[in-house]
């Protein structure tokens, strides 16, 4: 089957050698991130990092967080990724079976360019940047994570979504041999998530390929995942194999399983509680034993950037 070629990229968009060199230096800086000056009292854990390839990236100074980063160990051993089991430690223990190379990404639906693409062909065209984002889980815990990726909008625009593309759906890999958790009927596999097109095109929406300057570990959604820092974590699809542009709102996995507990928007909102627990506060993973609780911010603190997207929308009924 002939593979459709990717849209043409002007040479000006391709990284010049000198930038490449700068990135290498920045990378060296990133690996030295353990510096106590930057992260008081926190071990970064790069010494124990597995043999994941270092990435070339620049650091985006606009996306930083004042709070200390969570350690590599915390970020990679405390995960909700039900494809590998329901306990927080299961993904780190069970995700070795996931093969991320080769990896293909299918583009479908309301776009001019559709088809199946090799991931490396896609990634070649996107310069990577590091962004430090707050991550807020619907279970009322949070972390601060240095992701490496590129704007989701840059990827989506390449496929030239048509005017009828009102939503974007992200589908996770379906393969119970690689993802043993899919043998259980916990959710209707494969995992599906989705966004309104304007949410997906928002500059904060990040396509993530790495963390702490290296390729993503499998348990964090390798090789390709999104991260939407103003939404609860379950909105951020992991190990994505398909992106579909749709005219109608896609039925996503958690609202499909529990319509009363998880909504399509899932914007972080301290005033709208989960039916079984409060969302007013959250626990920061890794903080001291008695100092974890902190107030949750509207849109996880990204209201200035994203509130405009939801003007006129009742956030209580559209939770």
């Amino acid at each position, binding site marked *: 089957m002939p593979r459709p070629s990717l849209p043409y990229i002007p040479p000006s968009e391709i990284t010049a050698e000198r930038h490449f060199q700068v990135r290498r230096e920045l990378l060296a800086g990133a690996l030295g991130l353990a510096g106590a000056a930057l992260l008081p009292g926190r071990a970064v854990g790069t010494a124990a990092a597995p043999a994941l390839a270092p990435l070339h990236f620049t650091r985006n100074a606009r996306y930083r967080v004042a709070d200390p980063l969570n350690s590599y160990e915390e970020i990679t051993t405390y995960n909700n990724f039900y494809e590998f089991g329901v306990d927080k430690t299961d993904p780190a223990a069970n995700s070795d079976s996931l093969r991320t190379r080769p990896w293909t990404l299918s583009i479908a639906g309301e776009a001019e360019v559709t088809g199946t693409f090799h991931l490396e062909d896609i990634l070649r065209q996107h310069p990577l940047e590091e962004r430090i984002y707050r991550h807020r889980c619907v*279970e009322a815990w949070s972390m601060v994570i240095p992701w490496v990726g590129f704007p989701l909008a840059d990827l989506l625009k390449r496929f030239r979504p048509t005017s009828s593309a009102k939503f974007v759906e992200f589908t996770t890999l379906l393969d119970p041999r690689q993802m043993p958790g899919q043998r259980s009927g916990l959710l209707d596999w494969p995992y599906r998530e989705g966004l309104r097109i304007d949410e997906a095109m928002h500059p904060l929406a990040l396509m993530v390929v790495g963390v702490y300057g290296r390729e993503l570990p499998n348990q964090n959604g390798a090789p390709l995942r999104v991260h939407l820092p103003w939404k609860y974590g379950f909105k951020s699809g992991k190990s994505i194999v398909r992106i579909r542009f749709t005219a109608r709102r896609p039925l996503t996995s958690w609202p499909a399983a529990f319509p009363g507990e998880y909504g399509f928007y899932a914007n972080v909102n301290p005033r709208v509680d989960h039916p079984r627990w409060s969302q007013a506060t959250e626990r920061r993973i890794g903080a001291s034993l008695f100092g974890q609780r902190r107030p949750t911010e509207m849109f996880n603190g990204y209201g200035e950037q994203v509130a405009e997207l939801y003007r006129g929308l009742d956030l209580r009924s559209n939770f």
Partner: protein
Amino acid sequence: MTMRTDVRYGFIYKPLLFLICLVPVAWVLAGIGNALAITHLPVPGLGADPVRRMLGIFGHSALNLLLITLCVSPLRQLTGNAQLLRLRRMLGVFACCYALLHFLAYVGPFQGFDAHAIAADIYKRPYITLGFTALLMLLALAITSTNGWMRRLGRRWQQLHRLVYVIIVLGVWHYWWQVKKDIREPLLYASVTALLLGWRWWRRRARRARSATSNYALPTAPERT
């Protein structure tokens, strides 16, 4: 020559059981000590979220000990060994201690001593209301578990301590209600609870049926309650 039962229970079985019951709390303390680099003990770590882990260990220990406590009577009936009853009080009191530790871990590390949030949780969240109710009942049973209270309460002591059946149901319900989706483990706890309570119900029914037949020819006496 065999040791006297009193000696065996007092100096071997009970101290041994006491030490076994301390294992979960020792594990948590060692895990915290290791995490703070105060101790360097060879125990499995509490992971990236020691607070949640601690809540889980204490909560599970409380439920496990309650279920073991409820196994004592059936085991005695099945084996005919009445001495087993000597161990029951310690099991029950430890169950209460772990439920209390579970609550304290929730109050301090989990909620950061936020009295308002805790009160709101107990009032608004059904699974926390259930757990808190179970804890209060369990505390009442632990306090009245002494010989002095047994004497003082007389017949009513046993009636009061039947609350343990309510407590285990509330405890398992509390657990069931908070899991996000995977109910396999709460289901296991619920099954064991159903088995243990079912056994009692079945025996009670059989006993009543027996006494009904044997009393058939006798003049009926007013039923005593």
